[in-house]
């Protein structure tokens, strides 16, 4: 059914939105692993998204690596950075973690802006070619990858690993008393979450054609947060729903001008206040 989507929407513009949606699904899944299943408020995902985009693009550009090899390297790089953030997270809780992760994202953004000899800073890199020609092909590629990631993650959370992560989310101190090494597992979650965000980042520059640090502002972290929460944190289908809803809704509301962007804020606030389980919880109740 998903395969039929690009043919339903015949305009190039809407097919592009589909690609963005697929990328957002990946990002939401990544954040969900860290926040929804492991309970760590991570506002730094935009950093890993950026690393994925920049590392893969620069490796292809300067060292002429093959796109797939470069992307692999970028994903690994993002994963490592996620582990680094986890090193901070080991000691921090709640608000401190939120702000530290935000600080991480800001530092990454600033490095991208200032390290001009490597990243071209705000001047940007342009004329970037996508790994496959054509929006439809790109959509199949990214959506396919998203599906694979979804399946893998679904298996993961159903496995004992998932139980461990959930234990940490509920009460880390008690989990420690049961012999769970919180630090290792948090690092695992952060690392995987970062790697997936980096993976999404690899496809972004080719899709747009132009790469600037501004695309990875900390606002992106807030947007990902909105998708996870609105869709339903801690469930598998939740982030997917959130990503789809929050990608398409602003586009459908384009007639309302700038007001349409308010949908992120409105949705997030209302959901947190009145529907803490997100949209996914509506379906759960019925079952």
């Amino acid at each position, binding site marked *: 059914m998903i395969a039929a989507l690009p043919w339903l929407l015949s305009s190039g513009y809407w097919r592009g939105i589909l690609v963005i949606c697929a990328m957002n699904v990946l990002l939401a899944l990544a954040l969900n692993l860290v926040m929804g299943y492991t309970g760590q*408020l991570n506002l730094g995902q935009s950093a890993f998204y950026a690393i994925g985009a920049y590392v893969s693009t620069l490796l292809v550009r300067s060292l002429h690596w093959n796109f797939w090899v470069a992307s692999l390297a970028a994903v690994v790089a993002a994963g490592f950075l996620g582990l680094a953030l986890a090193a901070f997270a080991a000691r921090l809780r709640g*608000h401190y973690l939120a702000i*530290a992760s935000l600080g991480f994202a*800001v530092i990454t953004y*600033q490095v991208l802006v200032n390290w001009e000899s490597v990243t071209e800073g705000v001047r940007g890199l342009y004329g970037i070619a996508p790994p496959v020609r054509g929006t439809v092909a790109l959509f199949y590629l990214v959506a396919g990858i998203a599906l694979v990631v979804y399946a893998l993650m679904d298996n993961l959370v159903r496995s004992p690993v998932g139980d461990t992560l959930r234990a940490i989310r509920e009460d880390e101190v008690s989990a420690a008393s049961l012999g769970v090494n919180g630090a290792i597992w948090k690092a695992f979650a952060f690392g995987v979450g970062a790697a997936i965000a980096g993976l999404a980042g690899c496809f972004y520059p080719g899709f747009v054609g132009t790469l600037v640090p501004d695309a990875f502002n900390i606002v992106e972290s807030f947007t990902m947060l909105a998708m996870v929460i609105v869709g339903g944190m801690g469930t598998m289908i939740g982030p997917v729903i959130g990503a789809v809803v929050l990608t398409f809704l602003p586009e459908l509301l384009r007639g309302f001008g700038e007001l349409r962007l*308010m949908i992120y804020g409105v949705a997030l*606030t209302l959901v947190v206040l009145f529907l803490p389980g997100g949209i996914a919880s509506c379906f759960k109740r019925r079952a």
Partner: protein
Amino acid sequence: MSDLAALVVQQSLNGVYLGCLYVMVALGLTLIYGVLNQINFAHADFVTVGAFTAFFAATRFATKVLGLPDAAGYLLSIIAATGMGAVLGLAINAAVFAPLRERGDELRPLIATIGVSVLLENAQLALFGPIPYQFDSPFARETIRIGRVFFSAQSLLVVLISAASIGALYAFLRFTFLGKALRAVAQDRETAGLMGINQGLLIGLTIVIASALAGMAGALLGPVLVLSPFAGASVIVKAFAIVIIGGFGNMQGTIIAGILVGIIEAFTVQYLGSGLIDLVVFVLLLAMLVVRPTGLIAERKEENV
């Protein structure tokens, strides 16, 4: 005065001016945290709204409608912005903090404030457009010179107003009954409740005061910032850094940290370049989190198991 000495003094003065502005923003954050254990992510947007309120009050209302001279118009706009901040504080307390307070969930109110922040930012975007406005304070054109150093009347005004506000806040907390009750609530909410203090009212009052400060900060920051709906974003990250460096909930720490960050900014521009300011401040922030997470002036805070 030697050249180097003059330079150091001058940049320090520049830094103190910037620092006062940051303190005004960070103080509200730290107040809310002190009494509620909550971070208000929408705080910086309150600052932006305050700045816009001041801008329109000064340029459209005070001078055109009331026919006041520029200087009086600007001062009036500061009051208007402070009031607007208070209103926003009331609103967010009623909509977010009060309803969620009972449930004891740490993260949900924080995320709700993120939602409010995004909402406010985009609402301002829709109302004012993304085009930056040029907010000129009449005091910025007047230069005061003492020996080889100079500062604008605007910076003097900012320092005076900040000092006065902080002084008033201190007096309030220390000497009035309400203030003492507030400190009690900050120290131990449950016990304070047992002693007959109406927590809800006091928490609401704190949020209103904090948000009013944010509004005032906006009016003072307006001439310094690129005034657009995104102005808050550039300030909030520094404000968070200051609150952490100074210690969450700790007023003295916040003030010291704020001035410190301002001075660091001025000297970073001198020796490194303005692009590196955020980087330097944030590296400092992360370093603090590793070395001394409780902040410059450590306050004992136990986490309940």
